[in-house]
């Protein structure tokens, strides 16, 4: 299960869905991880960003809007949030 405590930090899950476990990523931060992987992956890829940084609730939607990518869903899990994001363009 992608959200388990011992899940791989970044792993590919079929099809074109990538889990980015950025819990505990205080430096450089979860949004930096999201920006990085979005640059690397093709258009249409979906990402599950896991973050326990409260600032992500503001930063992630704000950046996605500016960058023109889609925030599909935000789920509150125990101790962290799961952001489902789709890359919309190069």
């Amino acid at each position: 299960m992608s959200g388990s405590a011992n899940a791989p930090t970044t792993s590919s899950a079929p099809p074109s869905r990538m889990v980015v476990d950025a819990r505990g990523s205080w430096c450089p931060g979860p949004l930096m991880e999201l920006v990085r992987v979005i640059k690397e992956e093709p258009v249409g890829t979906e990402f599950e960003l896991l973050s326990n940084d409260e600032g992500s609730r503001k930063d992630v939607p704000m950046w996605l809007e500016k960058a023109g990518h889609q925030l599909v869903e935000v789920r509150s899990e125990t101790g962290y949030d799961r952001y489902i994001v789709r890359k919309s363009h190069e």
Partner: protein
Amino acid sequence: MKRVVILGGGIGGTTVANRIRKALEGEVATGQVQIQLIDREGIHAYQPGYLMVVFEKMRPEETRRDEAQLLHKSIQLVKGEVEKVDSAANKVVVKGGKELPYDILVIASGSVIHPELTPGFVEGAHSFYDLANAQKLRAALHDFKGGKIVVSVAGMPYKCPVAPLEVTFMLDDFLRSQGIRDKSEIHYTYPIPKVFGIDTVAQPMQRLMGERGVTIHVPFNVDKIDPAAKTIKGVEGETIPYDLLIAIPPHRGADFVGTSGLGDKGNWIPTDRYLLRAEGKENIFVLGDATNIPISKAGSTADYEAEAVTHNVASMIRGEAPTTRYEGRVYCWIMTGLAQATYIKFDYLHPPHPPTPSFAHYWNKVIYNRTYWDLTARALF
């Protein structure tokens, strides 16, 4: 005899080699365990010193030592470039054909800067991520008579995430000390909508930038640099002219990670964030910049990770399960001027809260820079 092979003679590889030797002192002394470390040049670089070289807080020669002098005499140093890890056959192939079999492999091959990945970077930007360029930047600042300086991040991930903040604040102090701050502008760009990744750090740093008269451009993701026109263009559409550009180059993991099929698209190795084992590889541990763990690529991270890797390697050598967890601990200073600093200390569960910058924190960093060789690299304490 059991063989432990370590790839990389940076902070992570050196300290973990010395710690494993210490943890398995009896086994190494009696020849039951052999420790080998492979390093390309056999020169150990203290990379946090490069920024200090730019501002003449350290001399270039203070950032380098012979690796052989730092390793315990019972650790075999193999000079050579790793060509491939054959994880199916449990062996490392060194360029030139030499092969080193292993029972346990520790990969500490760090990150490699690739300025050529950003158009115009090599011709148009200064940086301080290797010693030669740090010295060039030092000379350029010495000749600088005023104008517009832009500090920018050209790729992610990059090592020492706080470095752009540090160079900005040190630059401000430097220009004041030269009496040319009023003839100069400092512009800071960052890829996300704030000056650093999380609020507890970004807010005090942004406040400090306001006090120092730094102009902030966020979000700004570098598209290209035009060396002739002296401009830097962001994918968001903004173009900033500069007289002197200081940029953080793109980074990648080591080439052999890719050719060995161990890495992701950036040659970072998917790694269990707690046990620090390469995913799907029972006898390969990874530490430092080489992992894909989304925390600071920094010497401090490698140092703390080395504690867990040492315990886990020693356990496996003794036939026990590796159970020691790395909990995400990192401790980094942030220079906020030429003689003041703050710090961030955190783990996976606890975010950092940098204290008010002070001379005392700066002095602690100076002391660490001096004691690094014994304290961390030789793991004497």
